């Protein structure tokens, strides 16, 4: 009876492990989509109203529901007081690397590059760059979703098999 219970627990744990892994990927995808959508709002604000960046960041910080993305805008708003001592591109770069840890290295690099672009004086290239990065993030989210769909059964299968193998070894 004890062996049976142990075996069930091991199997459940391994399946739960696979579930957590998939959940993490799903959360990551949601964060990426939230960031993408916030960049598109930023673009719209710049294009239609020439809203100052600080006001944009405050707005995004207020409306954002995803904690990681909210933290990004919160840190940017707080960091705006250091302008003058620090350049905006440096502040942006630091905030991206500190808070947007869910991004892959390629996406991090793309989002970091926006810092220099946002320092520009012409709104049009700024909007183009924001749109381009948002498109990239959208593509990245789609890739994660496709991979997730393909890998769900595989992940559960492998973890179940590993659990079973472990039980056999123990018995």
């Amino acid at each position, binding site marked *: 009876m004890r062996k049976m219970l142990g075996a069930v627990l091991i199997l459940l744990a391994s399946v739960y492990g696979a579930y957590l892994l998939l959940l993490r990927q799903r959360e990551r995808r949601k964060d990426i989509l939230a960031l993408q959508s916030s960049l598109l709002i930023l673009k719209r604000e*710049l294009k239609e109203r*020439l*809203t*100052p*960046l*600080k006001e944009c960041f405050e707005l995004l910080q207020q409306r954002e529901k995803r904690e990681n993305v909210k933290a990004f805008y919160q840190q940017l708003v707080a960091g*705006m007081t250091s*302008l*003058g*001592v*620090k*350049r*905006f591109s440096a502040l942006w770069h630091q905030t991206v690397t500190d808070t947007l840890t869910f991004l892959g290295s390629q996406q991090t690099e793309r989002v970091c590059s926006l810092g220099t672009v*946002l*320092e*520009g*004086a*012409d*709104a*049009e290239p*700024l909007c183009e760059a924001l749109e381009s990065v948002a498109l990239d993030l959208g593509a990245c989210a789609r890739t994660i979703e496709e991979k997730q769909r393909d890998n769900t059964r595989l992940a559960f299968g492998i973890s179940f098999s590993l659990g079973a193998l472990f039980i056999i070894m123990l018995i």
Partner: protein
Amino acid sequence: MPAELVQAMERYKGFLPEEIRLRCGHRPALFYAGEEHPLEAMPINEETLVRILQRATGASLYQASAALREGYYCTGSLRIGVCGQTTAGRGTGFAHFSSLAVRLPHECRGACDTLKKELTRGGFRNTLILSPPGGGKTTALRNLIRLLSNDGMRIGVIDERGELSADVYDLGRCSDVVSGTNKLSGALLLLRSMAPQLIAADEITAPEDIAAIEEIVGCGTSLLVTAHGKNLADLNTRDSYRRLMNRGVFQRAVLIHTRGNKRHYEVRSLV
């Protein structure tokens, strides 16, 4: 501002500096008592100028670019003059920044009390305040607006750059401010909507500004405006002003003389 610059300026606080002058390759300087005084700080480079502009504009140069193309940007009560290598493209109109002049405002309450009495003796008449750039025209105009407005005169203020009516300044209880528009549109808006007894505006320089003055004259509203010029003879060298003077638009002129850190106001009748 870079910490080093703020530190270097600390000890000059008591001198009431009027401007901070920042030029690439040179030490920063404070302008007070009619001359520039270099600070004990490292020479300025373009990176520092960009950081200061980013601070002033909240890193939103795209939003400030229209003003920067005109050569200045106003934030709060500060006015930052910009200079550098210009470009024909869009944006700020500058490919590189080489100098900044940060004008530090001072509200000198009480400085224009006597002047106000002189200007209102026998009723207020169209008045032109005259001094070279940085001579204290805007400060005098602001003080006069506040004093006249607190006396109950309805004053329409055309504040094109937002420099006169920044949050820190009190323009009196009877002042109505229109800002962010050119002088002609501002004047017409005030005349239509606020029935001012006096219209005040800073720096009548461009031909469009003169056109605005010509529009206001004869509307039953008095004028209080400022212009660049060392003396009345200076004005007569400018065609547009000569036209205004010949038409007898202004009945009084206030000439501002600076001696050391003090300003003296001389009222001249133009009638």
